[in-house]
């Protein structure tokens, strides 16, 4: 009788243990599932907000264009006004293409090797990419303007950008919308940690009067002879 009771007790305790373990595991699985689910919901919300913002911007531009067209059709615009409008549009396009020297608020990131090894082009590319992610509007490495076709290549102990030799330290200037500037500083923190690992000293400075020179316009950097416009 005593044996039977002890055996029953053992079995019950054993079962209890198993149930506790199961309970614990199922709670853990549930939490991780919930985290994953939440992540997906967050991603979707971010995507949705971005898409809605894009649509708003598009609608705004459509409205503007429709007004322009109306003015053109009814001949409200004199030829002189049309010329003024075109000149303004062209200047904006030249600024966008990097054909103008520009000034603005932004940050200056200086990279310097703390040992004797040369800084790799990948490290500069990483900084440029992070800065782009923060919506910068103009970029330069040692005053060489970075445009859509600019390359950054290491050759020995120096860097080649836009076909021109640059010597360290590398000073990367970025002009951004001041509202987005804080963003870019936060983003840069991760890169700074990564660069420290490669023995690169990073100095980040905010500056309200950054000047970034225009791209060299001698036909070597801006090239489009191989591009045929499609209508």
């Amino acid at each position: 009788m005593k044996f039977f009771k002890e055996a029953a007790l053992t079995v019950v305790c054993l079962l209890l243990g198993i149930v506790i373990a199961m309970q614990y595991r199922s709670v853990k699985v549930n939490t991780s599932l919930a985290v994953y689910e939440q992540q997906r919901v967050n991603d979707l919300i971010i995507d949705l907000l971005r898409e809605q913002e894009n649509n708003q911007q598009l609608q705004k531009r459509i409205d503007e264009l429709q007004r322009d067209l109306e003015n053109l059709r009814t001949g409200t615009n004199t030829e002189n006004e049309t010329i003024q409008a075109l000149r303004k549009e062209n200047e904006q396009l030249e600024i966008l293409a990097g054909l103008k020297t520009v000034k603005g608020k932004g940050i200056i990131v200086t990279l310097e090797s703390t040992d004797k090894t040369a800084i790799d082009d990948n490290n500069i590319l990483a900084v440029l990419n992070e800065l782009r992610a923060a919506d910068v509007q103009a970029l330069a490495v040692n005053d060489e303007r970075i445009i859509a076709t600019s390359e950054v290549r290491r050759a020995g102990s120096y860097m080649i950008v836009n076909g021109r030799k640059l010597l360290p330290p590398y000073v990367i200037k970025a002009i951004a919308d001041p509202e987005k500037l804080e963003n870019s500083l936060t983003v840069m923190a991760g890169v700074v940690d990564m660069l420290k690992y490669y023995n690169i000293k990073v100095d980040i400075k905010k500056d309200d009067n950054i000047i970034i020179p225009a791209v060299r316009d001698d036909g070597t950097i801006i090239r489009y002879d191989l591009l045929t416009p499609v209508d």
Partner: protein
Amino acid sequence: MRNAKGVLFVVFLLFGMFVTMQFRTVLLAQQQNTAGESQVQSLTAELEQAKSEGIKLLEKLQKLEKEKDEIMRQISNDGNPVINELLDKKYELQVINGLTDVRGSGVIITLNDAPARNEMDPEQLIIHDMDIVKILNVLRAAGAQAIAINDERIITTSRHFCAGPTILINQNRYPVPYVIKAIGDPDELYNAVEQNEAVIIMKIYDIQVDIRKESEIIIPKYKTYKNIENMISGLEVVEK
């Protein structure tokens, strides 16, 4: 003896409580899951709707832009050489800025994640943002004149990335495979990419890299959601 009965009583009590708790957790989890699921579903539907609306708006915008250019041409054909000259300049600047669809010969690079293998760290099987940054850099160094990833035109300030399972380019998200198109000298572009260290390493990890020379590639223009004005809002021209 009475003691043993007491222990047994407590143990059964606990046991009962646990069974109830377990049952309730499972029930709750199921409810939560369906709630999360339906939220995901409704958000996905909303996102799809916003996207298709965006495509329609973009088409409308492009149509209007074309109309405006045509009207401008008519005005210039009526014989105003200044307008004509400014229009030609505008067109050239649009090509430089990636604001026109362009055609030419070049290469198409298709990247896909490596097939899953148990013994490998999954981090090593996926394409990272730096892989793409490096490939774009190689293409630029080899003289590429126009580049697009999944038909998103890369311009000076194109934000790319956060690769991983998806890539974010110019505000739009795309899953693998990533298709990089570049117009330039096909042989130069091909050799530069083929011999690039980053590409060789990707291949070692079994990431699928396919490079093809093409005699005709069409690269679409940058989709400008914003006004040009907004894209240069922080820049003040310095006259030299």
